[in-house]
């Protein structure tokens, strides 16, 4: 058995794992990432609020507070460097009762201490001038101008791809089932050997931790349901509208998305199944009822899809980031504000690991990534020019989001290749629009089959267990 050797192996291709991988790829280290699914961004990172929080929620002095504020600063620049969807839209925390005002003021104080810039408490009427559909019942809001929205898929993939461009390796469809200690490192699945492991396994962070560490931990899946609305409603609110937090998280938000849709959610229900990302009637009804409190005129007949994400909730209230055993680093329990903190978690874990290994920064690190072309964001002239260069950009496959064959082919052959319908959808948004893939999915399947040189019936929605069709008609009758 020949082992593939790396200095560091990151387990888990969510936004945390990819951010850490990118950070490590700045150093003279050989690094790899193992992801159990067919694509990165397949767990918590693909189903969340897509918010870059300003940083007033976390208690002073916690890792969450520190990494959120730093992460929020880093993300703004990263979005430019790595080319992912980002909009600095600002956020409101609303309160509906004069009695709740102290709660709002407490948040303000906490935010100031955490180092959040520009925080301001404004009165209901002024807030409604800024946000006309804000409920009449809102008496005051905490305004955080530094809050932003991102595309979590693009952000995760961008971080991962930039790491690959800088020499990191990504192994997809690679589930870690076994870790053995070796004198100066670890053997994973009897396939990989490394000096250090970073555990960024999201919902399975406890399982991976418990493979190595004596002191066992447990992460609880906390599910959150969301409803996504047609782009037609993208202008209903400009800011991200939160309600005053409760013990079950930041409450239900109403927010625009980086792609111009509108999102409401999440619920917060603790469950036991780590794969239990199914929406439930109770949770969907709850978020709809709650969203109505903060914003008027939500057109509930314009919902185009609902989805559920799981947050990995640790026993304590803070992220679990430390060297849990010699050379084994945990970056787990990354619930909200995990997406906002990811680039800072990358830095923080990167510093720990590289200090441990005595690694030096590379000189030729490539900071930027071009990413995929987005023709529908271009003007007619640029677009016409590109179609002349590559006619496939002129063949529109997804009519709702106006995505061309060329863009889909680019995604299939991108740095971290898209090999499933969902992977294509996350990269280029084909099937993400109002018809939800009704027209384009057979066409995208045909393109995937052609580009990957596989039979049409082998195209999957996501992993190997998700076939779209069951063979050709009449096949059973042929011998």
């Amino acid at each position, binding site marked *: 058995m020949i082992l593939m050797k790396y200095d560091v192996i990151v387990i888990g291709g969510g936004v945390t794992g990819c951010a850490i991988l990118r950070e490590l790829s700045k150093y003279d280290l050989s690094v790899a990432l193992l992801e159990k699914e067919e694509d990165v961004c397949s767990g918590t990172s693909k189903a969340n609020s897509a918010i870059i929080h300003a940083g007033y929620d976390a208690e002073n002095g916690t890792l969450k507070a520190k990494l959120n504020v730093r992460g929020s600063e880093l993300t703004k620049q990263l979005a430019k460097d790595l080319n992912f969807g980002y909009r600095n839209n600002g956020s409101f925390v609303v309160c509906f009762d004069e009695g709740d005002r102290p709660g709002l003021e407490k948040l303000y104080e906490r935010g100031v201490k955490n180092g959040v810039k520009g925080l301001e408490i404004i009165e209901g009427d002024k807030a409604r001038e800024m946000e006309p559909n804000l409920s009449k019942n809102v008496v005051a809001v905490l305004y955080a101008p530094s809050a932003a929205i991102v595309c979590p898929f693009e952000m995760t993939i961008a971080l991962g791809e930039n790491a690959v461009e800088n020499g990191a390796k990504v192994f997809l469809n690679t589930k870690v089932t076994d870790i053995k200690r070796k004198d100066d490192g670890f053997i994973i699945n009897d396939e990989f050997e490394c000096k250090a492991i970073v555990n960024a396994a999201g919902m399975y962070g406890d399982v991976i931790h418990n493979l190595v560490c004596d002191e066992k931990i447990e992460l609880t899946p906390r599910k959150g349901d969301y*409803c*996504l609305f047609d782009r037609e409603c993208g202008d209903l609110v400009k800011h991200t509208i939160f309600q005053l937090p409760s013990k079950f998280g930041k409450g239900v938000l109403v927010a625009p998305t980086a792609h111009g849709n509108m999102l409401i959610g999440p619920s917060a229900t603790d469950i036991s199944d780590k*794969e239990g*990302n*199914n*929406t*439930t*009637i109770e*949770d*969907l009804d709850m978020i709809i009822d709650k969203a109505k409190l903060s914003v008027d005129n939500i057109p509930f*007949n314009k*919902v*185009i*899809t*609902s*989805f559920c994400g799981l947050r990995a909730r640790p026993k304590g209230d803070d992220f679990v980031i430390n060297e849990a055993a010699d050379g084994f680093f945990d970056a787990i329990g990354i619930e909200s504000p995990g997406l906002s903190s990811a680039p800072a978690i990358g830095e923080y874990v990167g510093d720990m690991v590289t200090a441990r290994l005595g690694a030096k920064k590379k000189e030729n690190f490539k900071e930027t990534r071009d990413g995929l072309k987005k023709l*529908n964001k271009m003007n*007619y002239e640029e*677009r*016409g020019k590109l*179609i*002349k260069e590559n*006619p*496939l*950009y*002129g*063949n*529109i496959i997804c*009519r*709702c989001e*106006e995505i*061309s064959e060329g863009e889909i082919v680019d995604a299939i052959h991108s740095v971290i290749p898209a090999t499933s319908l969902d992977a294509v959808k996350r990269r280029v948004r084909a099937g993400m629009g*109002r*018809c*939800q*893939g*009704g*027209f384009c*999915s*057979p066409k995208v399947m*045909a393109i995937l089959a052609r580009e990957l040189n596989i039979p*049409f*019936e082998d195209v*999957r*929605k*996501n*992993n190997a*267990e*998700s*076939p*779209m*069709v*069951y*063979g*050709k*008609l009449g*096949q*059973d009758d042929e011998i």
Partner: protein
Amino acid sequence: MKYDVVIIGGGPAGLSAALAVRKEGIDSILIIERDDKLGGILNQCIHNGFGLHTFKEELTGPEYACRYIEKVLEEKIEYKLNCMVIGISDDRKVTYVSKEDGLCTVEAKAVILAMGCRERPRGALNIAGFRPAGIYSAGTAQRLMNIEGYKVGNEVVILGSGDIGLIMARRMTLEGAKVKCVAEVMPYSGGLKRNIVQCLNDYDIPLFLSHTVIDIKGKERVESVVIAQVDENRKPIPGTEKEYKCDTLLLSVGLLPENELSKLANVELSRVTNGPVVSDSFETNVEGIFACGNVLHVHDLVDYVSSEADLAGTYAAKYVKNQKGDREYLDVEARDGVRYTVPQKIDVKNMEDRIIVRFRVSNEFRGKSIVVEADGKEIRRVKKRVLAPGEMEQLFLNKAELEGVKKLCVCLKESV
């Protein structure tokens, strides 16, 4: 490039409209089609039942389409395939992209919108559960089977009793799948009686009225769905849940006119039909932009699409030949069981002597009459034994009876 008439969409509406424009003596016509064939959705509707009104014989979808395609070829009407229109301006500049032409803008004296409709997806119903493979809108499954030639599922549950869902229940059964049941949230079916009998009853497929899917199980591929009875407010009734093992859930829960392009041209849309608001000449609020077929309102029979598009084409041609003068509209009000009318407004001064008004009703009614009132006076009363939302209704109005009228309304009243 400049054309007299540009038609967006080469399905049944676009083809029929193009032929009508040509019949009026106009040579400069362009049909822009996004697919690689003319005929639109008819190409995948391989079942029979088309053309009884138009051709007095029962054709399949591809045969029906072919009758029109052949005429379009005979008339040498220009058409472009694999071209997607990405923009229309209110001064009738149409921009499209394609592999061959790149990005092109054509100018038209008149534009006819004939883009058709799309299916309502799962998300619009907000069904709870997982999001695995194996959930298809009926039309997507129809394409995968009838065009690509693949087996979509082995054990199937269908939500919604729209005609495409019923047709697919039979189609999948014939190809060896087991269709367990069809659930319909309303207390009546949205499909034609004939399809209930020949697609479900013939194969002992149960139809559960006032039932809906409340949960989808299976993380990767559908494993089962839970169906429950609903009360009069369409809320699931606890205790009525039943789980059906299946690998496929087909949705046939309604069609929506596809008007993203219309919006770019500032065309006013109706909140009821989701299609443009048009006058008796099928002209939208934007001068020189006309609409017909399923982009205007969802039809039950393709024959009506063809006849409507024929009228729209004729009016568009007349508009090109002699730009109409001032328009003054009389609104048609729809109420008391009538959901909408097409047209929504009539230019009485310029109208033809006799026009067709098409509409749908909001519920299943028995023993009602369709009534037209002009300034509060009943000018028409048509007795109906049964009226159903699944079937389109029509009536004729004469210019003579509308002259000088200030308020016009179509409604349902008890038959006497």
